[in-house]
């Protein structure tokens, strides 16, 4: 396939491909000849090219997300085997091995099962010699003329090949079986199953056109259905009068779903459902594109879907008695073209329990209100580059819910073709950062080095700025290096004076406290309760933050400060204090005072005294 990139038209060869993935404005193809990155003007152009590639080769591509939201499109034609170790999916391509780390062990198990099903499907025709095979041909030229007769007639584990033609019959499968529909085969009624623990594959290019009001694939309209059946369905198109699927447990991979009724994909059951649908294009003019209605806990994974809905209600819905426990949307684009304000696009859960919704590298566009809504409580986990627009009514609502953004969520205005210019809100731009650090190279600071107060001289400053909260402030982290210590030390662990560090470490032992009632300061246990607070020696004390304003309360004798019994200050401003006559240079002052702040202690010239 030829792909137009910003640096010319390039060829992407599926035969050489192991896997590819979207990375912002580029697609990375991992080929037998090495990795190659194709660049595009913007993210949407790259996504569109990636989607076009997928649309051509969807049958042999499996989409697996990692724990950062990156979605790997794996060429199953190259897969030798795959396995799971905890959260890691290990894919052996022969020449290379690719490990993909999932967000959870459940996710890795589900994705590996999904991958193995597609590998099985892709290799089925090559391995057909391993099966007892029966052929269905409505012309009567082969083994059977109806599918139901073939299903009834073959043994467990057999394969049935369905030739082109129309099949207007009810089909019920109750055994392990592979049905392969060749191109041109068309099924006009529901397929159902009543088997327990059966492993069933419906493969190929079948068109399922059912104009009844209840199109059912392995649904509960069939008596005695067991939701534990292991079902994998591939299809070309589904044209449904009502529902695409009903009561389905398993994996479905196809291309186009065209529902006429109110529900495109309906999962309705009285048992636990675990539904995984891949590679579908859905256009619906009615409500409820994806829906879950079950009285037991269920899960639904939707991958590589392009959905356009013009309904006034929801695209994604689960309601009433359901016990859906998790939706996962992986690399999907979903558009609700309804302009009506107040419509609850995308998610509407009236569940009685909390739901988790996981979104990977997906795009949600609403022409009307954009609304992730839950009457109860919905938890959204967003991974990778996800896009949500605000909608025409400028309402971006995540009602009653919790939003976890593990990497990036872009909320922007994009038009219905997904190609308008981006409004970049990835990270709010900062200005004038970094600001000056508290200390600089050459400064002497004190540090608690494994219990010993150590005097250190800074020999390097490392300042990092980022914006984790995406606000206008950002975050600045100052760290300092020293000759004596290998690791950088954070600013909060350094002190200007030895006493300030000591106070930080042993404040209570120094008995430094302030009585808010009597406005007393008691230091080193020297306290004259009758005459007020007494301070014998201020040398080395770190008094920043002490409030002396109460000394104005001259009627309160407890506000007096004394040195060796001499009242130093009683309603007297410290501005009147003078240095001893012997002190007339900075050096003499520093030798006498010993503890001072180099920045806030002003010398007689009005400038900071410095070190």
């Amino acid at each position, binding site marked *: 396939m030829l792909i137009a990139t910003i640096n010319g038209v390039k060829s992407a060869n599926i035969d050489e491909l192991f896997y590819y993935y979207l990375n*912002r404005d*580029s697609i990375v193809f991992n080929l037998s000849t090495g990795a190659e990155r194709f660049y595009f003007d913007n993210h949407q152009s790259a996504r569109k090219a990636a989607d076009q590639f997928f649309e051509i080769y969807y049958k042999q591509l499996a989409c697996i997300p990692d724990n950062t939201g990156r979605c790997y499109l794996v060429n199953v034609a190259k897969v030798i085997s795959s396995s799971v170790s905890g959260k890691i999916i290990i894919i052996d391509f022969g020449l290379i091995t690719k490990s993909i780390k999932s967000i959870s062990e459940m996710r890795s198990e589900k994705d590996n099962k999904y991958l193995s099903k597609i590998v099985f499907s892709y290799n089925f025709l090559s391995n057909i010699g391993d099966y007892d095979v029966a052929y269905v041909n409505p012309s009567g030229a082969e083994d059977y003329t109806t599918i139901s007769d073939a299903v009834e007639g073959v043994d467990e584990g057999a394969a049935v090949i369905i030739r082109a033609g129309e099949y207007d019959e009810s089909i019920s499968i109750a055994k392990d079986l592979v049905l392969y529909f060749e191109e041109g085969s068309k099924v006009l009624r529901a397929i159902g199953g009543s088997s327990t623990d059966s492993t069933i594959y419906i493969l190929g290019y079948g068109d399922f056109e059912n104009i009844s009001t209840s199109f059912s694939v392995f649904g509960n309209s069939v008596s005695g259905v067991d939701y534990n059946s292991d079902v994998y369905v591939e299809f070309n198109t589904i044209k449904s009068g009502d529902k695409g699927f009903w009561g389905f447990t398993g994996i479905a991979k196809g291309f186009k779903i065209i529902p006429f009724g109110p529900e495109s994909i309906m999962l309705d059951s009285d048992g636990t459902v675990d539904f995984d649908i891949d590679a579908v294009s859905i256009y619906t003019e009615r409500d409820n594109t994806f829906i879950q209605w079950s009285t037991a806990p269920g899960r639904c994974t939707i991958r590589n879907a392009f959905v356009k809905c013009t309904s006034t209600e929801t695209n994604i819905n689960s309601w009433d008695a359901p016990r859906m426990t998790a939706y996962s949307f992986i690399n999907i684009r979903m558009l609700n073209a309804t302009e009506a304000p107040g419509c609850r696009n995308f998610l509407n859960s009236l569940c009685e329990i909390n739901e988790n919704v996981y979104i990977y590298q997906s795009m949600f566009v609403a022409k009307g209100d954009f609304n992730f809504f839950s009457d109860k409580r919905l938890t959204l986990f967003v991974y990778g580059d996800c896009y949500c627009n605000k909608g025409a009514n400028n309402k971006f609502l995540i009602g009653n819910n919790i939003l976890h953004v593990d990497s990036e969520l872009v909320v922007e205005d994009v038009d219905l073709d997904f190609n308008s210019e981006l409004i970049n809100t*990835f*990270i709010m*731009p900062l200005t004038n950062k970094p600001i*000056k650090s508290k200390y600089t190279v050459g400064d002497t600071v004190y540090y608690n080095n494994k219990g010993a107060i150590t005097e250190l001289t800074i020999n390097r*400053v490392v300042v990092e700025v*980022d914006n984790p909260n995406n606000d206008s402030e950002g975050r600045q982290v100052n760290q300092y290096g020293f000759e004596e210590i290998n690791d950088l030390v954070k600013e909060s662990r350094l002190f200007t004076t030895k006493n300030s560090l000591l106070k930080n470490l042993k404040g209570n032992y120094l008995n430094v406290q302030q009585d808010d009632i009597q406005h007393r300061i008691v230091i080193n246990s020297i306290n004259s309760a009758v005459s007020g607070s007494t301070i014998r020696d201020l040398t080395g004390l770190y008094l920043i933050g002490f409030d002396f304003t109460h000394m104005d309360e001259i009627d309160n004798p407890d506000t007096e400060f004394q040195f060796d019994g001499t009242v130093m200050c009683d309603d007297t401003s410290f501005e009147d204090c003078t240095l001893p006559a012997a002190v007339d240079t900075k050096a003499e002052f520093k030798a006498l005072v010993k503890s001072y702040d180099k920045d806030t202690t002003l010398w007689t010239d009005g400038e900071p005294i410095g070190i």
Partner: protein
Amino acid sequence: MKYTGTLSVTTHQVGDTVYIIENDVPVAAVVSKTKSLVDADDNESVQYQLTGYGAKWFYESELFETKEAIKTYFEDKTDDL
């Protein structure tokens, strides 16, 4: 001995879009983190992390404000030959 630090406001701020050269092609990226380093000789250097490039640090000399700046850079280099 200095009183003020020598930390400077970085040329590119967190959130700014910059351009780098990757495989001979200009690529836009957003600055996600900056790191300013002042060493014992009072030399200051700045490095940048860009979204989509993990924990890799880029030197300021590798970043350009516009695609045109890259072109100018190469033209100047050509002129120097």
